[in-house]
């Protein structure tokens, strides 16, 4: 049975990371050149790690499925990145950022990891500025900040509504420099399909060349997965079309534990679903909640008339509007954390107060702030988001309130990692959204970019050396080994069997069905019966998939349908594990809301006696029930309380 050792260093919380660094093993420069590291993924977590490791002298092989590393989905992040700089002098500190993150995560994350994250946050901003990231500035030339949900201070740095793209370009540029210097070999359009383990250690990957369909082998002393989140298990999400769980899932099937799979985040402000043909959901940055006020009609009859198109939002007088977040949570108002805001929107819509032709939307209104600050100020802050909204909906948000609804956005769950970001497979590390580490049951806005870059620039490049220091006598090895043969054969057989089904239904037909099951039963509100139904239905769907899938085209060719099919095959297994995890967790916390466990006021009701742990699932073989191992969470610094945003 897999054992979990979180490897949290000894000592007081604020000394753990410096103690760790002072005592860890390092690799000397001459030996670094002899060590290879595979980094799968070129988002913030992957690109920053690849660049930093290469600068240190390691030889890095970097992979992504897009045509260019610069296109990883980190690029889509809009709102900003947190750091404890306290530039606005509003009382922020490392401790407060740590505290907010633990509380925001509903006390389901590890204190030591989160403290370290807060500690290195300031260095990230320094690093990015040095790379030429054009953060927003004040007239005096200093960096500007804005506030985000779940915090009472302004600690979010941003670059218009494109923070992700600008941070990623910084990391991509650093990576490009190392490619030129010959320290990184870059493999775009190369999709990891399998993990190769030799003598119990991660030693390489099997990847498929997306253009030719050829399977290729790559070896290294260590493998890092920075492959992003698995929101696309819901089909509709704010993720990129190609975002997938396959690299993590294949590693799970090779022995890596998967932490808290049921913890996914539903973002409160996305453009509502409008039709069957829809392929993805577009986020409207949470930063909009700084200046936008969320409301629905106070009277059901008005909501009905709006849905029928008889009246519009503008026809309702102030008294006819219910600013339900401000009403329920006077202290945080529109800036409550995401899970709270999402559930409140669902509650209003389920109760019949929703707007839009489907009734599954609420208003996000800028009227008051346009009056207070002027249209120009609002345009300078949110211009590109408003434009994006208008292009999609054909409505002008300067004049009519936006309509929004929650959508799947982020996966807090992911590969289980210890303090060193190592999975339960020695030599296999996971960073960024792909790991489960820092956000507990709910992530605060602007903290994913922070975590991705913390992992890649400042944590992994150190911790991986503690492992590699023992590998300096391992020579570079060939891919001509029985383990590589076996892994390639396994993948090749999977691909052939998918091609050979020759049924009648397309990949998307199945993916949409899976999405509906997940959203219905494993989405914003869950209950025992629903989760059991989900497990049944997913199993049926999986059978149908393997009996009736049709993939046109050829195996050894550019074949996007085959690519989608391999990803969906893994989602069809992950979905079941998520439902099992949600079923096991008989409490509500953060993004995981079990209807059976709520307070009289409809807030999430945790059960700290029984569920104060990370659920790490391990694979026991095809068709067998996975095993669940608990990592107990110990809070030494913070007093565990019910979250209160009133």
């Amino acid at each position: 049975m897999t054992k979990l050792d979180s490897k949290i260093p000894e000592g007081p919380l604020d000394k753990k990371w410096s103690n760790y660094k002072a005592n860890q093993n390092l690799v000397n420069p001459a030996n670094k050149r002899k060590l290879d590291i595979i980094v799968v993924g070129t988002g913030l977590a992957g690109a920053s790690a690849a660049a930093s490791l290469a600068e240190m002298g390691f030889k890095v092989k970097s992979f992504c499925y897009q045509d260019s590393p610069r296109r990883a989905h980190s690029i889509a992040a809009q709102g900003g990145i947190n750091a404890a700089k306290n530039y606005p002098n509003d009382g922020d500190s490392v401790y407060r950022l740590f505290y907010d993150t633990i509380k925001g995560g509903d006390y389901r994350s590890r204190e030591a990891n989160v403290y370290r994250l807060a500690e290195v946050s300031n260095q990230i901003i320094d690093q990015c500025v040095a790379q030429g990231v054009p953060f927003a500035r004040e007239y005096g030339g200093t960096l500007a900040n804005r506030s985000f949900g779940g915090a009472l201070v302004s600690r979010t740095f941003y670059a218009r509504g494109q923070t992700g793209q600008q941070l990623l370009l910084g990391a991509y540029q650093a990576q490009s420099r190392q490619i030129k210097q010959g320290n990184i070999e870059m493999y775009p359009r190369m999709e990891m399909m399998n993990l190769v383990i030799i003598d119990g250690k991660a030693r390489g990957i099997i990847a498929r060349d997306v253009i030719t369909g050829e399977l290729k082998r790559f070896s290294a002393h260590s493998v890092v997965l920075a492959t992003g989140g698995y929101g696309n298990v819901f089909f509709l999400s704010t993720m990129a079309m190609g975002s997938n769980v396959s690299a993590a899932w294949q590693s799970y099937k090779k022995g890596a534990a998967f932490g808290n799979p049921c913890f996914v985040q539903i973002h409160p402000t996305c453009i509502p679903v409008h039709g069957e043909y829809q392929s993805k959901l577009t986020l409207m940055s949470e930063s909009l909640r700084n200046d936008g006020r969320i409301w629905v009609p106070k009277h059901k009859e008005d909501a009905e008339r709006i849905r029928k198109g008889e009246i519009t939002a503008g026809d309702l007088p102030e008294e006819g509007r219910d600013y339900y977040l401000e009403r329920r949570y006077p202290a945080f108002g529109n800036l409550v954390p995401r899970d709270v805001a999402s559930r409140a929107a669902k509650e209003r819509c389920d109760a019949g107060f929703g707007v839009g032709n489907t009734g599954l939307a609420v208003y996000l209104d800028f009227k008051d702030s346009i009056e207070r600050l002027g249209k120009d100020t609002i345009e300078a802050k949110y211009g590109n988001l408003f434009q994006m909204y208008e292009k999609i909906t054909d409505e002008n948000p300067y004049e009519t309130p936006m309509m929004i609804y929650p959508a799947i956005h982020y996966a807090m769950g992911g590969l289980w990692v210890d303090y060193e970001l190592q999975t339960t497979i020695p030599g296999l590390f996971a960073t960024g959204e792909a790991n489960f580490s820092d956000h507990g049951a709910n992530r605060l806005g602007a903290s994913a970019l922070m975590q991705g870059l913390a992992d890649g620039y400042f944590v992994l490049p150190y911790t991986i050396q503690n492992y590699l220091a023992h590998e300096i006598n391992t020579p570079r090895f060939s891919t001509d080994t029985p383990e590589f043969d076996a892994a390639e054969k396994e993948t090749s057989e999977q691909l052939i069997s998918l091609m050979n089904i020759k049924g009648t239904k397309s990949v998307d037909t199945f993916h949409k069905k899976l999405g509906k099951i997940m959203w219905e039963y494993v989405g914003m509100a869950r209950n025992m019966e629903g989760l059991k139904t989900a497990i049944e239905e997913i199993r049926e769907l999986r059978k149908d998939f393997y009996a009736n899938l049709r993939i046109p085209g050829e195996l050894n060719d550019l074949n996007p349908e085959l690519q989608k099919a391999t990803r969906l095959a893994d989602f069809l297994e992950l979905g079941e594990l998520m439902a099992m995890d949600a079923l096991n967790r008989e409490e509500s916390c953060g993004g995981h809301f079990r209807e059976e466990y709520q307070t009289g006021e409809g807030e999430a009701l945790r059960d700290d006696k029984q569920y104060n742990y990370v659920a790490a699932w391990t694979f026991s073989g095809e068709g067998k029930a996975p095993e669940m191992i608990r990592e107990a969470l110990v809070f030494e610094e913070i007093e565990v309380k019910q979250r209160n945003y009133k």
Partner: protein
Amino acid sequence: MDLKLKIWRQKNASERGRFVNYKISNISPDSSFLEMLDVLNEELISFGEEPVVFDHDCREGICGTCGMYINGRPHGPDELITACQLHMRKFRDGETIVIEPWRARAFPVIKDLMVDRSAFDELMQDSGYVSVNTGNAPDANTIPVQKEQADLSMDAATCIGCGACVAACKNASAMLFVSAKVSHLALLPQGRVEAKKRAALMVAKMDALGFGNCTNTGACEAECPKGIKLTNIARLNREYYKASIF
């Protein structure tokens, strides 16, 4: 909506391509252009035919992966958007839509509408960065940056690397892209140090990669989904000139 589609189909880089006509019906005007192609592809799959291959990922106008000529225009008939942000309400019922891949020597076709834009990455690898290692940075507020400069830098940095500028240019020049990259960094004190060298190296690399010369026709600016301005090219030329006289 009912539409006629005329789409470029090409099996691979070495085979010749051709236009193929398709008919498609019941398209919602609220669907996006790529969702319309999804519907077409689902139909093709149901007939057992190979779907039309096109590049796309974020579908929200930021990753720069999508890109094709739609009725003769890169990213199609709307201003300041990418192909994935184009919506069907911009077309008329019954219209014929012509869809082709980017055409440029430096961007060879891979299959159907998908092209190889790795030349952009090679340009960036040449010198499109600030030479700073992780861990070397001073406090972020040590060097104040004029807000106006930072804003101009940000304007240039919004380039998503889609390649529409190259596709729109009759010389297939990458000047708008390169100028956006050079301007983004040259306008900030951190990038200023290497600005001249960067400009010289990137321009030389652009020629080496088979991009054409800039003859100031301005077609790139007109089609750029992110509104990158020609003034960036003027700035690049100044940097380049400085590099060649010093």
